[in-house]
């Protein structure tokens, strides 16, 4: 008798563990629900699209090293937030002061500005000063910290990671080491983009010459943009904006 009761109890306990999934399915089957599905391919760089007009820059925040400084100096963007730190090492982003032509005594760091901004579209250009590093583990961890902070501050923010374009020359890092380090850096950046579901821009697709490096006229010293290069960079940004309405689809079932 006791055995029978025990067996029944065991069977009941097992059934209790299984039934909720079935029940859930049954309930769902009787209802009509819609979900917003993101069809964007985060594994690929942002594809080409129509030009955005200048009002787009009001929604944009640009942060980076001296390469981003070119956009500040020669970009002719009057309504955008552009901030940069010359010789920025990302590990020091909360220590190094931003370059501020109007206020040279400014004590503000890029980290502070990134933490404060609530702009919808944030562009990040980091990594060239770390290009000689033997690995990008610590760099990646710090980058992740920044991405997490931006997402926490504004869950709907669109983040664009800009990959490092291939410069003509980097002091003390001759080829093929330069190319190898660039691959490692850009792989790290793409991995961050994929893991965090953020976008990435690959300037090498369109701004490189036949040799696979940045077009000579676009850079003054092999690395930093000239006026012409900055305009090409700006055009690239303006034609590589993700339009969410294209990729967000409501699926009802």
């Amino acid at each position: 008798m006791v055995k029978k009761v025990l067996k029944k109890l065991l069977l009941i306990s097992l059934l209790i563990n299984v039934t909720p999934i079935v029940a859930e399915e049954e309930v769902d089957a009787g209802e009509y629900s819609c979900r917003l599905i993101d069809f964007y391919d985060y594994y690929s760089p942002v594809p080409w699209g129509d030009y955005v007009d200048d009002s787009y820059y009001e929604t944009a925040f640009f942060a980076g090293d001296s390469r981003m400084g070119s956009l500040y100096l020669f970009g002719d963007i009057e309504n955008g937030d552009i901030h940069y730190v010359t010789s920025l090492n990302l590990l020091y982003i909360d220590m190094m002061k931003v370059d501020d032509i109007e206020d040279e005594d400014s004590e503000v760091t890029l980290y502070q500005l990134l933490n404060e901004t609530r702009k919808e579209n944030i562009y990040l250009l980091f990594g060239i000063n770390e290009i000689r590093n033997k690995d990008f583990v610590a760099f990646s961890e710090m980058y992740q910290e920044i991405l997490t902070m931006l997402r926490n501050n504004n869950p709907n923010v669109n983040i664009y990671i800009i990959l490092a374009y291939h410069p003509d020359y980097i002091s003390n890092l001759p080829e093929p080491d330069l190319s190898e380090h660039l691959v490692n850096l850009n792989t790290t950046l793409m991995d961050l983009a994929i893991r965090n579901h953020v976008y990435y821009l690959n300037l090498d697709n369109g701004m490189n010459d036949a040799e696979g490096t940045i077009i000579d006229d676009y850079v003054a010293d092999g690395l930093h943009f000239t006026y012409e290069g900055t305009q090409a960079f700006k055009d690239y940004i303006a034609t590589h904006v993700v339009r969410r309405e294209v990729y967000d689809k409501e699926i009802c079932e």
Partner: protein
Amino acid sequence: MIKKFVSSLLIAMLLMGCGSTTTESASTSAPEQKPEETKETTQSQDTSKDGAEVKKLSKQLVSDLNLEDKVAEVKERIIPGIFFFEEGTVNASSFYVADKKADCVGVFRVNDEDSCKECIKTYLETLKAQLQTYAPDEIFKVDNAIVDSKDGLVILVVCDDIENAKSAVNQALNK
């Protein structure tokens, strides 16, 4: 007959599921916890002692060399990412660095002085390469960087006042 078989099977499955967890937690984890805990406590005490020592020394050097307004202390967790030390060679570290300048003060408690010095050498070479582009006037300081060690303590100083730095480092190392 089938009912009996199914019931027995279910009981066996349940017992297997529960039994293994209990066995693991009772027989393997518990007895080993104590020695590990003791070891960890001793290690953390040593690390904390080393940490306090390197912090005190680096702060003293920054003060002696009048670098307070120039350099700022770096969070300890990012120091390995700056120097790329071999794993397990550095027990404690403290590092002060300037914004856009070459000046820095680093104190490291290490197991392997040569390995640590090699990493510092690479750091200085990289720093020099960067400065060539952004602040060439700073390169002479890097060329005259002081990297010295004694009894597992390694010190790095880059600053303008090289002579004063040498004597401050000697004093810190009891040389």
